């Protein structure tokens, strides 16, 4: 293309060709007409008759459409013309087969939508950043026993206030360190528009029976307690008023201040500006509201709290003046912002130095562990069982996509055979092969685009529904979960491309193959290969569908099973009564003990109460210690708890060997009782009674794994009880050591009350009782069963079951649709064959039988493969789902397989029968 000089001429022409096509076409025709007329005139002048002249002119000029085409070709925008034509043709074809089009679009949008939502939610919930400015600079801090230990524990992320001060001042790689913890404090003097006591039973979680409908006689607020520099380090300003960093610590203590969350302010005070400056009481401490945090601001947490308090008020809140100086009180999680240019490695070394300096002599040296900021307390690979659940859900979503693609693929394959004639006709009319292929490509692309559009809509809708479900799942009192999620376009693009490639190319390849054979009638060989390919596809589709639906049903049954799961103790008839003394400093220990004793005595005589003991509920036994048997040297880490003599009786846990604790005060010191699995661990195969072991620290506090050394006094085992289930996914806390609870420890433990009859009546009675003994005491009561439903494994299992069964249902729908459509379509294609067979004298029922056999063969093969795959899957899943055995539900495998087989048979039988009913002459002409 020489030079720019000719552009003023070419560009206007191109524009004209593009935008004024009709006018250009007309001009072309006019030009040809002029030429034609002159030619005719010349002919007339030569003496021809008008007809001869016109015929000669026509011959000379050649076919006008061809000339048109040639000229159009020179214009260079033919591509767009052809594209437009292809699109229109494709649209017509798709409209002509509405069921095919609809099936493909539905399948693809379901597959794409489900996957996009699943992966987006995964990213949003687990790859969440902190709600701060420049969240990439924020990190989480932990202190682990040795470098590179995997599995960070809850003990490793808990810091004391002196810890916080040390790291704040001495580590250069941090430009700011903040401390953070969550509290649930009793709220009074609040007034306000809406009272907080809405029923928890109305939220979705409540409807699943997942929340304690326990009664409590006071209002609570969720509070985030944060260091004074929190908002400065996070880079967040107050919506109204001020944040803590505008005041010095002494000022904060002198006039206690708090912040209120905007969400709570809206909900409770209807955005009344008078809340600024208002004084409320949290746990009895008067605080003034000095500011409002922005809407949906969660900081380093996950949930929007009602209030924010500065750390300096902790001594007042808990009634413990030395709270901020004690090394043993470690409730805080620490986060930091990296200084500009600092790396995590540098920060880790810096923090390790400080950590080592802080350790007193006998403790093992600790190493810092820092990971990118996240509201989740532990780094992701510390959550063991949860990850597996999530992985499985992702897998299920992926399989839905694969089933969808298989659906589309086999539908396409089936359809191509029916279009063979059309393709041959077009080729013989003179279309170039390239042109035909281009048209097929356009058609596939159009289908893909339509499906993509539908998928986008579906994804958006599904995302909204899922989010509303999750956000509404927790009741307002726990703070509202904040999830700002839009469908992740990157993920969407990925999934879209995959499904395009998989689903649509399967239709393209055979079409290209077909077009290559131009007019050759001998397409027999490829038909056989084609048929086999198609059968394979159908079989794969069936197998995958079977696996998906079986996996889904397993999840559902797992959830149902865990609803009545074996805990090893009576949970429905035991009430846990937790009490709190309001301003702890007001009550001396002796007064508290007296109150508890009176409470116990009065509760014991309530009708319906069978037994009462002081202990923590079984799923709250989080404390662990080291244990070493005296005759061996290997150390084990076991859970422990303090219980009274009548604990096992109250919970219905049988004593298997030895004896229980004596209820009188004359219990020899240093006796313990073990659970079955603990005994098995320490002395496998032996009777543990009479053996002795050393324990580590048993002060019911969190200790990091490095502090657990069995260097305490020796204890003697006096009995063994059956295992009961705790709160761990894998049942590792069934290995329990039970220590006797002394009389003066009673006031620190909740009460467990065994009832003879309806627990609700007893709960109501205790309510009245507590108010009459001491109106300032705050109690919460719920049955152990209700509390169990709140534990991590149960909630995870239930939610996973809900999601998986939704996926399973979707998969079932998709699969059934796919099988019915494909098999039916294949049979319809054989209509002509049926006509021929009848015409040569075959019996109708023979034909139908033949077709049924041949159609169901690939289906049966697919079902067999599917059953094998499903059996393998269920074997893998059994570790995750409570109490599900591997071959559990073999019956349901068979059910599902039979269902699919029935659908396939039906899908084959109906069109086959219809084909035999029609007059052979008609079917022979059927295309």
């Amino acid at each position, binding site marked *: 293309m*020489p030079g720019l000089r000719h552009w003023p001429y070419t560009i206007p*022409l191109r524009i004209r060709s593009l935008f004024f096509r009709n006018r250009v076409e007309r001009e072309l025709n006019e030009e040809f007409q*002029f030429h034609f007329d002159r030619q005719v005139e010349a002919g007339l002048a030569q003496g021809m008759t008008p007809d001869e002249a016109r015929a000669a002119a026509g011959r*000379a*000029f050649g076919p006008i459409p061809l*000339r048109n085409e*040639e000229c159009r*070709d020179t214009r260079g925008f033919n591509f767009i013309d052809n594209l437009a034509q292809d699109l229109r043709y494709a649209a017509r074809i798709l409209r002509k087969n509405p069921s095919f089009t609809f099936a493909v679009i539905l399948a693809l949008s379901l597959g794409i939508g489900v996957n996009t939502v699943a992966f987006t939610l995964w990213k949003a919930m687990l790859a969440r950043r902190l709600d701060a400015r420049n969240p990439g600079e924020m990190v989480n801090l932990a202190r682990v026993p040795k470098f590179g230990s995997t599995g960070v524990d809850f003990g490793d992320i808990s810091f004391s206030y002196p810890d916080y001060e040390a790291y704040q001042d001495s580590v250069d790689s941090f430009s700011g360190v903040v401390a953070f913890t969550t509290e649930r404090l009793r709220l009074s003097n609040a007034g306000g528009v809406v009272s907080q006591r809405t029923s928890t039973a109305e939220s979705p979680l409540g409807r699943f029976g997942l929340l304690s409908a326990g009664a409590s006689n006071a209002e609570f607020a969720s509070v985030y307690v944060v260091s004074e520099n929190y908002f400065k380090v996070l880079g967040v300003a107050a919506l109204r008023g001020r944040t803590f960093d505008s005041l010095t610590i002494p000022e904060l203590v002198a006039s206690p201040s708090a912040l209120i969350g905007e969400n709570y302010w809206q909900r409770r005070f209807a955005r009344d500006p008078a809340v600024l400056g208002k004084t409320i009481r949290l746990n009895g401490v008067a605080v003034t509201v000095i500011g409002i945090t922005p809407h949906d601001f969660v900081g380093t947490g996950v949930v929007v709290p009602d209030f924010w308090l500065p750390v300096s008020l902790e001594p007042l809140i808990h009634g413990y003046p030395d709270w901020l100086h004690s090394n043993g009180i470690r409730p805080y999680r620490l986060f930091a912002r990296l200084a500009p240019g600092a790396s995590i490695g540098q920060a880790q070394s810096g923090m390790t130095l400080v950590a080592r300096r802080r350790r007193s002599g006998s403790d093992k040296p600790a190493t810092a562990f820092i990971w990118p900021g996240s509201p989740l307390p532990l780094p992701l690979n510390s959550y063991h069982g949860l990850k597996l659940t999530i992985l499985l859900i992702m897998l299920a979503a992926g399989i839905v996509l694969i089933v969808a693609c298989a659906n589309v693929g086999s539908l396409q394959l089936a359809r191509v055979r029916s279009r063979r004639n059309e393709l041959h006709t077009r080729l013989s009319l003179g279309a170039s092969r390239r042109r035909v292929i281009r048209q097929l490509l356009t058609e596939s692309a159009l289908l893909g685009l339509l499906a993509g559009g539908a998928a986008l809509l579906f994804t958006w809708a599904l995302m909204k529904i899922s989010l509303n479900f999750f956000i509404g799942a927790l009741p307002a009192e726990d703070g509202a979960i904040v999830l700002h999620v839009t469908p992740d376009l990157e993920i969407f693009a990925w999934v879209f491309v995959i499904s395009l490639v998989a689903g649509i190319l399967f239709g393209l390849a055979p079409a290209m193959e077909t077009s290559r054979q131009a007019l050759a009638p001998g397409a027999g060989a490829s038909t056989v290969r084609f048929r086999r390919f198609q059968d394979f596809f159908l079989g794969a589709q069936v197998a995958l569908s079977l696996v998906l639906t079986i996996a889904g049903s397993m999840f559902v049954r797992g959830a149902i099973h865990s609803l009545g799961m074996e805990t090893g103790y009576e949970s429905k008839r035991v009430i846990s009564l937790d009490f709190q003394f309001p301003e702890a400093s007001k009550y001396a220990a002796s007064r508290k003990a007296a109150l508890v004793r009176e409470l116990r005595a009065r509760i014991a005589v309530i009708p319906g109460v069978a037994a009462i003991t002081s202990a923590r509920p079984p799923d709250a036994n989080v404390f662990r210690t080291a244990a070493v048997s005296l005759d061996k040297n290997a150390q084990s880490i076991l859970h422990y708890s303090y219980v009274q003599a009548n604990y096992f009786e109250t919970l219905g846990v049988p004593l298997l060997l030895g004896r229980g604790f004596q209820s009188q005060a004359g219990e020899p010191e240093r006796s313990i009782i073990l659970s079955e699995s603990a005994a098995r661990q320490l002395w496998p195969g032996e009777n543990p009674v009479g053996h002795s072991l050393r324990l580590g620290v048993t002060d019911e506090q969190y200790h990091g794994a490095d502090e657990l050394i069995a260097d305490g006094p020796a204890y003697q085992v006096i009995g063994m009880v059956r295992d009961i289930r705790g709160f761990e996914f894998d049942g590792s806390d069934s290995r329990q050591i039970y220590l006797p609870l002394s009389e003066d420890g009673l006031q620190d433990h909740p009460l467990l009350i065994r009832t003879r009859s309806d627990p609700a009546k007893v709960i109501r009675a205790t309510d009245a009782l507590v108010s009459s003994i001491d109106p300032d005491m705050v109690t919460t009561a719920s049955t152990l069963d209700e509390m169990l439903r709140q534990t991590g494994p149960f909630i995870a299992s239930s939610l996973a079951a809900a999601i998986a069964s939704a996926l399973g249902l979707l998969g079932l729908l998709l699969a059934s649709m796919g099988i019915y459509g494909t098999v039916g379509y294949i049979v319809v294609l054989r209509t002509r064959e049926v006509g021929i067979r009848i015409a040569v004298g075959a019996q109708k029922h023979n034909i139908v039988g033949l077709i049924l056999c041949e159609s169901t063969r690939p289906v049966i093969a697919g079902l067999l493969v599917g059953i094998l795959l499903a059996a393998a899957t269920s074997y893998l899943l059994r570790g995750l789902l409570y109490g599900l055995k591997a071959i559990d539900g073999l019956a349901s495998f068979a059910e599902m397989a039979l269902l699919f087989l029935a659908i396939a048979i039906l899908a084959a039988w109906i069109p086959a029968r219809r084909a035999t009913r029609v007059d052979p002459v008609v079917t022979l002409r059927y295309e």
Partner: protein
Amino acid sequence: MSKPSDLVQGTLDLLLLKLLALEPLHGWAIGIRLKQVSGDILQVSDGSLYPALHKLEQQGWIKAEWRSTENNRRAKFYSLTRPGRAHLAKEAANWDRLATAINGVVRLTEV
């Protein structure tokens, strides 16, 4: 009209450009003029003429204009553009060189 033998597309372009350099013509007139000027030796078929004309137009060497003919009918008249003139000069020079070279070989009486 039959297709002129051995007439390459490029040569046809050269002929068309030269004709249009002398005066603006419409498609029919070009065919007539070519016949006249070449003494009936060179004939261009209608099937080749219009695509060639349109291609030259798309390339910017010639431009088109609708005018009335002597019979008061509308026809599309083509004429050279300024870049077209330059292109014509270049192509004509190329042709000269080529023709001279071929002549040189063909007229050889001895090796």
